């Protein structure tokens, strides 16, 4: 049997423009898995709340709203700076990318500081009751994720300042940005549950 040329791929792109890259699908896979974890935590919270006699337990008050709301704002703002950085490199603006990612890293670092102070001020421990356990676990889960995006994106920022990313070579930015969005937006259901939840359940 003769082997003949069917398709010639010599002129096709070797870069990964956006969604065509396997890495984009890979990060989507990670986000899907982690979203399932987020959802499972939320369901566990609601399950414990539904079977509790009082939520939060009598003697406890729901945690204050101010600082977590500011954190929500900071995380949304950091998503915006991340988005602007990504848009800059799509136009080939390397400096714009570096500034955008660095700003995001700084904003998320501020969130870490504020969250640390807030957690230290919690009046209950994870050892006290199931309510304390789930609040601390969800908080810890999200805290670790913010730490990881700060670390990962700091590396992206270093590479960006060194001019590694270009209009074509930007898949690293795309996947980092997507994961950044996930971590920031995962705060929304957690924020609603942890801070609005007890006020709704408590009525």
């Amino acid at each position, binding site marked *: *049997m*003769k082997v003949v*040329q069917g398709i010639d791929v010599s002129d096709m792109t070797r870069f990964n423009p956006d969604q065509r890259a396997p890495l984009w699908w890979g990060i989507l896979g990670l986000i899907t898995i982690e979203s399932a974890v987020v959802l499972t935590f939320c369901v566990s919270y609601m399950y*414990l709340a539904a079977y*509790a006699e009082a939520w939060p337990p009598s003697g406890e008050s729901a945690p204050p709203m101010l600082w977590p709301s500011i954190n929500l704002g900071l995380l949304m703002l950091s998503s915006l700076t991340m988005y602007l950085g990504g848009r800059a490199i799509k136009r080939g603006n390397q400096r714009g990318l570096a500034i955008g990612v660095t700003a995001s890293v700084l904003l998320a670092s501020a969130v870490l500081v504020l969250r640390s102070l807030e957690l230290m001020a919690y009046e209950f421990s*994870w050892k006290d*009751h199931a309510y304390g356990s789930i609040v601390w676990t969800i908080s810890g889960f999200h805290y670790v994720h913010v730490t990881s995006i700060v670390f990962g994106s700091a590396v992206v920022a270093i590479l960006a300042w060194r001019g590694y990313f270009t209009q074509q070579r930007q898949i*690293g930015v795309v996947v980092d940005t997507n994961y950044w969005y996930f971590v920031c937006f995962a705060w929304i259901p957690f924020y609603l549950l942890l801070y609005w939840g007890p006020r709704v359940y408590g009525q």
Partner: protein
Amino acid sequence: MTFEKPTNSRDVIDSPEETSRLERTWHSPGGLLGWFTHVNQRMIGKRFIITAFCFFLLAGILGILIRLQLAGPEQKLLGPELYNQFFTMHGTVMMFFFAIPVMEGFAIYFVPLMVGSRDMAFPRLNAFGYYVYLIGGIVLFGSLLLSMAPNAGWFNYVPLSSKLYSPGYGVDVWTTMITFIEVSALTAAVELIVTTLRMRAPGMSLNRMPLFVWAALVMSFMIVFAMPAVIVSSTLLILDRLVDTQFFIVESGGEPLLWQHLFWYFGHPEVYIILVPALGMISTIIITFTRRPIYGYTALVLSVVAIGFVSFGLWVHHMFTTGLPQLGMSFFTAASVTIAIPSGVQIFCWIASLWGAKIRFATPMLWVLGFFAIFVIGGLTGVMVASIPFDTQVHDTFFLVAHFHYVLIGGAVFPLIGATYYWWPKITGRMMSEAAGKWSFWLAFIGFNVTFFPMHQLGLEGMPRRIYTYVEEMGWGDLNLLATIGSLVLATGFGITLINAVWSVFRGRRAEPNPWGAPTLEWAADSPPASYNFRHIPVVHSRWPLWDWDTDRERAVVTGLRNDRREVVLTSILDAKPVGVQVLPAPTIWPFVSAVAASMGFIGIIFHPIFFVIAFFLVAFTLVAWFWPRRPWRND
């Protein structure tokens, strides 16, 4: 761009220099240190398969010891503590360390070959997943030698598994290693999904994809959605044990049933995660040994997808005796019975395919026929226990033990052994002995039924599961003795396959590229395949490319891939049109280093939470080293 058969295309002529250059580009480094750098999908797949079968052997030995303990009333072979450890380890290892990894191993090895790719989407992640699995398995089994093994059952129900009732490190080992190994399963799942969706040979549209690849795809999606639940439940349990959280402690507002919901939300799909790839193996074998297109390709695909969906709605049927609301339980009965419909569609499509065909009763086909007999019985008892009144009667008896061994061994292990005989020549380049294969099958088939069929009766007579002994007056002695004899016959049957496999590697008849006359692409590669899988990526025009090649005069291939670096074709999801070329990374030690760093964290937290923090940063640094771009940066 077209996928029609090319007209007036120029011939592709291979030069030996080009081939040897391709070999140099794709070969895996030799030596001991080189072993830790391999990223090739066939290497990784083979390691998964061999390691998983080692765990099958070890867990099987535990099973035999359990049967010997139960052979007669008031035996003294194992004490209650050892017995608890053995049945916990038997279940845990079989489910987590054998069944899933072996299915993923076969998928990792064969999916890229079946879709006509040179490797998978994330070769380094693949290697990482294997090391995680290997380390996790060694630690779990090592715990048995250190008398630290888990002993609260593979389901680890709280409060039995709480610190109060299970002191010591056993349950800690279970929860951490289960979470750890899920990382491995999840990496492989994402890898398989992306490879299947984006790296198929040009022209292999979704409706031309081999049925095993469909099954592996569904299995991977199920893993992605099921495993997070067990990760969360294990995390909550380890936190309860390690830092005194109160998730499952009733006095502090905790809910023990939350554990069961989370565990079975994962645990039920788990059964189908194991079954679904086996269904793909069966279809593959039936196509080849009837040598005609399968009946109802679309129905088979849709029913596998349906099984994947419905399996997520059944978990409460494991909890009928926990006192849930009646309406909820009725819903789960209905859902449990519903899954018999897509399963039935599969069986009827296979019967229709076999009907009137000239079947070749080679060894792989025998194991498939054995599956029919055993799985149908397991399915029928499954419909029985899905009914609340019946389940209330037989709950926690040997009837359940009989039922799930019929489903799991019949549904997964028999097809798996058949698939091993079927694909062995591709993996090793040698044929396994047919005569020994037939002996192995008949001994295993008879031994299996002698072992597990009497357990139905024992269950109906009221013998509870998880007891380490019983008194003579109960009258369970004869059937238990029979079951133990059966288990020895079953083990002999599997043992013959093991000897056959090892023997054939050295002495087996050399295999041609396509010894069974199969139609799918993996048989277009050499036996065993070259490091680059295919000299030329084929262009596909139908579901049965190799049968087409028997009749066609010309065979179209992809040209233009560079041979001095690892390039693969990227195609579109639905119709597999080429859209670009992906350059894959080369071998490296970093996945291994990362896995070691991660394992430090998972093993460490058994003893102290601080290891989580240390390992977190260690892993982060190893990942940076793994991904750090090396100059010169690629500019084309």
